[in-house]
């Protein structure tokens, strides 16, 4: 119990202190709301507009979720295929590493023209693409980088290639899949609402934020920002939860939240 308190308390205190300072800063310095609204005002708008906030969250969230599922599925399938067929890996890998350097978000501009103006497909496709590359790179690495001792052991049992893939490579790759998922889940949310900046239907979180700021309803805009943060956080927590449930032995491994395990003072 004490262990958990040690982990949870400092960030909570930090967050509470930050909010308090924010409120104080805006009030005492008489900051105009269009610059920076008070946390209390933002919360008021969040509460007051809740049905709108919820519906736009649903739109963006659905896009993010569908894209995430598609991207993960495609990434895993292609990674498996690439580990089996060397030529596929040789074709895709340099492409994937180049794509990792490019701001592929600009492809939404192209997708918007390929589909009808009211379609949500461009956004979902974009999310799927972003997620696909992250998942593919990680899972392919996981399938390749297996402990040679494990592979030798299975060979000594007369295992076929298929056996080795099933019993050694895939469990190893699972760990890498979750590393990818932790990164891809919040990124799916961000990609979903950034895609909305390119036009198309305007009832998602990204569009509502722009609308609110354009019509000088800033606290409302920030309320949508809060919703977007919460959505991203929810996806991240979901990814970690799935990881803990399916692979509990990795629960102790270092991730962004655990303290980096090494030398100190």
């Amino acid at each position, binding site marked *: 119990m004490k262990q958990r308190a040690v982990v949870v308390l400092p960030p909570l205190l*930090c967050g509470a202190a930050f909010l308090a300072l924010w409120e104080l800063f805006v009030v005492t310095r008489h900051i105009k709301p269009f610059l920076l609204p008070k946390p209390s005002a933002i919360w008021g708008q969040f509460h007051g507009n809740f049905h709108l906030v919820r519906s736009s969250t649903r739109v963006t969230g659905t896009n993010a979720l569908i894209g995430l599922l598609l991207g993960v599925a495609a990434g895993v399938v292609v990674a498996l295929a690439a580990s089996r067929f060397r030529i596929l890996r040789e*074709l895709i890998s340099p492409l994937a590493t180049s794509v990792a350097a490019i*701001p592929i978000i*600009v*492809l939404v501009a192209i997708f918007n023209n390929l589909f009808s103006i009211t379609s949500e497909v461009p956004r979902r496709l974009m999310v799927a693409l972003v997620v696909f590359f992250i998942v593919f790179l990680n899972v392919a690495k996981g399938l390749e980088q297996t402990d040679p001792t494990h592979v030798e052991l299975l060979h000594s049992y007369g295992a076929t290639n298929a056996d080795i893939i099933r019993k050694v490579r895939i469990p190893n790759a699972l760990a890498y899949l979750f590393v990818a998922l932790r990164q891809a889940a919040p990124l799916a949310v961000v990609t979903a609402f950034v895609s909305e900046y390119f036009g198309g239907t305007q009832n998602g979180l*990204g569009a509502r934020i*722009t609308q609110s700021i354009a019509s000088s309803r800033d606290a409302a805009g920030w309320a949508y*920002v809060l919703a*977007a943060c919460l959505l991203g956080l929810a996806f991240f927590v979901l990814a970690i939860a799935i990881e803990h449930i399916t692979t509990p032995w990795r629960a102790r491994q270092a991730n962004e939240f655990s303290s980096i395990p090494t*030398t100190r003072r």
Partner: protein
Amino acid sequence: MWRRAPDMDNRDRRVGDTRMRDAARRTLMFIAALALAAAAWEIYKAVGPDNGGDLLGMHVLPKAENRAMPHIWEMLSRFRHAEVRGSHRTIFDSVASGAWYSFRIALAGLALGTAIGFGLAVFMARFRIVERGLLPWLVVSQTVPLIALAPLVESWGGRLHIGAFTWQPWMSAAIIAAFLAFFPMAVGALRGLSSPPPASVELMASYAAPWRSTLWKLRLPAAVPFLLPAFRLAANAAVVGTVVAEISTGLRGGIGRLVLEYMREATGDPAKVYTAVLGASVMGLAMAALVASTEKLVMRNRRAGAVA
């Protein structure tokens, strides 16, 4: 005596040959992959439904007609022609200058984000309690929609007058790029700074070395193999941040705005938007090339393959 084995020199030469052959093969495969993608594009254009279609009951097939999907050669040749009818400026000029403009912004954002991220990492490495309190919030901060920060940063900047210095609009984009870049840098640097084995830290303690010396002589050099992949991620983040900032604030001069503008003209001029997308891609690749050469330079004295 520790002598090089007689056939070591030959072996080195052979290793060098294979490395060159691998590089050649990789380039070949890359070109082949691009060619295949182009071929797939043209094939879909030939057989796909003009106005989009249904797959398994859902309307998910893209339109194959010329106004939506131009031919590959149409996209490439568009570069040579004028940007707007009657103007002397070719698309190539516009896109190139836009990409260069954005590249410099991304570079500025990268520099700022790297400095902040690294500074934060040192702070967190020094005070464990800071790490525990701050790190989760840093993770959360990456989901904050950039557009919310853009008008904020712009109006803050607008009030900044230090002598003759006034806030330029591009600086807001650089700040947002820095905001995206600092996180991978902070995480990577923190991991690197904490990476030395306990024996090395004990060694420094046995010399009664102050924390500053241990940082400079041990933790920092030990962190370099972690900083490089982090730097790579930060560079990509800076590029993405710049483009998204440009799109959400409509910053003139950058490639992001060009993408938006050309997209809106796509019904009349379908190939235009593809040129801007290509320009943005080249910008990203240029940044990646810059990072890769920095990596080579920094790691030249280290064992090959020692990057974390």
